[in-house]
């Protein structure tokens, strides 16, 4: 049906687009936000923390652009405060039971509770954290979403943990890639979806190579190892909608990584930690400048289709346990 008109509709749609990523935040602005946050956290004896997190994330998101449009984080301190309290209660209960058994000299049960407890919370925290963060992230007014199923993710997680233990850690690389594939293949933006294709075996050999070369070069290779991990993340990621896709490419080099990390280290050390905001700014700039996206998909075709989700308990739990966000 597209053959007869002089210019086929299909042909005009399938145009190669290139989408730049950029970070426009300034160290001095982020520094002010961090300082005011810290002052208020101290004055409120820590209760301000969720609002501080809101301010921080809103700033970082709003200064990051994809195809010249900024991201938006719409999570609120109030939501995160509720989640924070719930997460604290869970944590307090767990440690309460732990100390109860510890004081009654049931050392084994006490430590079992802590280990099993943390292990059980981990997948729930990661899963819920993605649900919350994605639902609160939007771009061009289109909401992101994470549509993984909790039961499946927890199952995947425990199977991976057991296999990793049974293989003395070797399976860890496959485990990590399985989780990453599951999470990222379940991330959507509107009606388009992310896909991650990194394989455990490739990841495993990359890390073996990185580890030994780092040892052999007395640590110097570690920057190139970092670059390879970054590449492995970025180059295996794409966005798909229908038959069209946008691919991500890394432009990072080991030398650039060395400059970033050594520079950040010096900034933080010589400012006694006060320069942290500038280190974050340099990192954000580095990441966005070194990711390129291009493909035949046009984001003008995005439709709102993900649901809202406002329970921040898991996100706060991940914070309290310091699990970190990206797998």
């Amino acid at each position, binding site marked *: 049906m597209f053959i007869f008109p002089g210019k086929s509709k299909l042909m005009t749609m399938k145009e190669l687009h290139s989408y730049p990523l950029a970070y426009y935040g300034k160290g001095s602005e982020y520094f002010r936000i961090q300082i005011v946050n810290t002052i208020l956290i*101290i004055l409120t004896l820590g209760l*301000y923390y969720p609002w501080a997190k809101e301010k921080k994330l809103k700033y970082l998101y709003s200064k990051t652009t994809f195809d010249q449009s900024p991201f938006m984080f719409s999570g609120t301190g109030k939501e995160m405060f509720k989640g924070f309290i719930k997460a604290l209660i869970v944590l307090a209960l767990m440690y309460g039971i732990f100390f109860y058994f510890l004081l009654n000299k049931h050392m084994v049960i006490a430590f079992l509770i802590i280990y099993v407890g943390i292990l059980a919370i981990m997948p729930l925290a990661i899963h819920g954290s993605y649900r919350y963060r994605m639902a609160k992230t939007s771009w*061009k007014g289109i909401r992101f979403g994470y549509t993984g199923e909790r039961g499946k993710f927890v199952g995947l997680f425990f199977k991976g943990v057991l296999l990793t233990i049974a293989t003395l850690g070797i399976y860890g690389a496959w485990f990590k890639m399985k989780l990453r594939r599951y999470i990222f293949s379940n991330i959507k933006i*509107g009606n388009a979806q992310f896909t991650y294709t990194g394989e455990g075996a490739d990841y495993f050999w990359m890390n073996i190579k990185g580890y030994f070369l780092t040892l052999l070069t007395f640590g110097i290779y570690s920057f190139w190892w970092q670059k390879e991990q970054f590449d492995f993340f970025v180059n295996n990621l794409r966005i798909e909608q229908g038959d069209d896709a946008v691919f991500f490419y890394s432009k990072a080099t080991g030398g650039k990584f060395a400059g970033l990390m050594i520079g950040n280290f010096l900034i933080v050390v010589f400012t006694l930690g006060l320069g942290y905001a500038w280190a974050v700014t340099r990192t954000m700039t580095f990441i966005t400048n070194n990711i390129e996206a291009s493909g035949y998909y046009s984001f003008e*075709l995005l439709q709102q289709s993900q649901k809202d989700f406002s329970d921040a308990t898991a996100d706060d739990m991940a914070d309290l346990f310091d699990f970190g966000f990206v797998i």
Partner: protein
Amino acid sequence: MENEYVLYYNGINAQPARVRALISNGWIYVYDLSADALIQGFPLKGTTHNKVNALHYLYLDQQGLMYLEIPDDHPLAGSISVQVADANPYLGQRLMRQKTFMLTVILLGLIAGLYLLLINLVPYIGTKIIGVQQEIELGERLKQSMLDNAAMSGEEIDSAGTKELQAFADKLELSRQYPIHVTLLNSKTVNAFALPGGEIVVFSGIMKNINTPEALAALLAHESSHVNERHTLRSILRNGANALIISLVFSDASGIAGLLANSVRNLNSLSYSRSLESEADRKGMEVLLSNHVDASGMKQLMQALLQQGEGQENISFLSTHPLTKERIAEADKFIHNHPQHKQKRDDLNDIFQKLK
């Protein structure tokens, strides 16, 4: 006015429409460009403003899905950020308007104040809550775990020596509140330390360097003063408060900052321990005086350790308090200010000879 359009994202798809926008009475109204019909009005309260790269973004709903993209040269652009800020007051808004330098000063002042408060309050309250009996029990438990650790690295208790050393200590009145228990441990380390509640551990390494009963009495008096002044308990509480503050302040920072904070803390606790050491020296000499022991034993002790210490590495007794020369000078001053009958205590000397 016709060409002063802004882009409107409707939160349904990612294709913006050209619209006109008007702010009036705390509301912003979005009009269709062609038909001039009202699309929707939004209260400014609840909107969010962001400016990136010469473009203003005005998010109209709480979820940030509907928004306007306003170029910097549009008439609305000039005042939009102020209007949104006025309509959406938040905690810390006044702080955000301060100069960065001022903010840094406020923060550093606040941290310093909090630090000083906690660092003094926690040990104060702690020592009030923890009674003498509990302190003794704590000390015994700490001693046991330390001895277990020492045993693992091959350092055993010298039972016969411990008995003699205890007898030596019993000849002196070292503490009014606490029962002083001395333990002699076989070890090359040149050190001795006091635990809360009266437990004193002396390493055999330090005994080799002590040549007079007065110097040994000075060592025990010094350690007993740590016990009497509850120095160890206060240090434990103070370190706890320190760790708490540092984890609070740096919880957001990277590992490097944490590491740095840790070394600052160590340095700090070193200077704190120095002030405790000189207090223990002074109080120790007072104990010597009240026991009719020549207070210059303290000076002899330090000089002996200083001489032995040259070229040796494992003299912890000095390395934790490196300003030995200053301490000797202090001891000299004390002896000068407290004239005494230089007498020998034969009972101490007898036990001391057995120990040697």
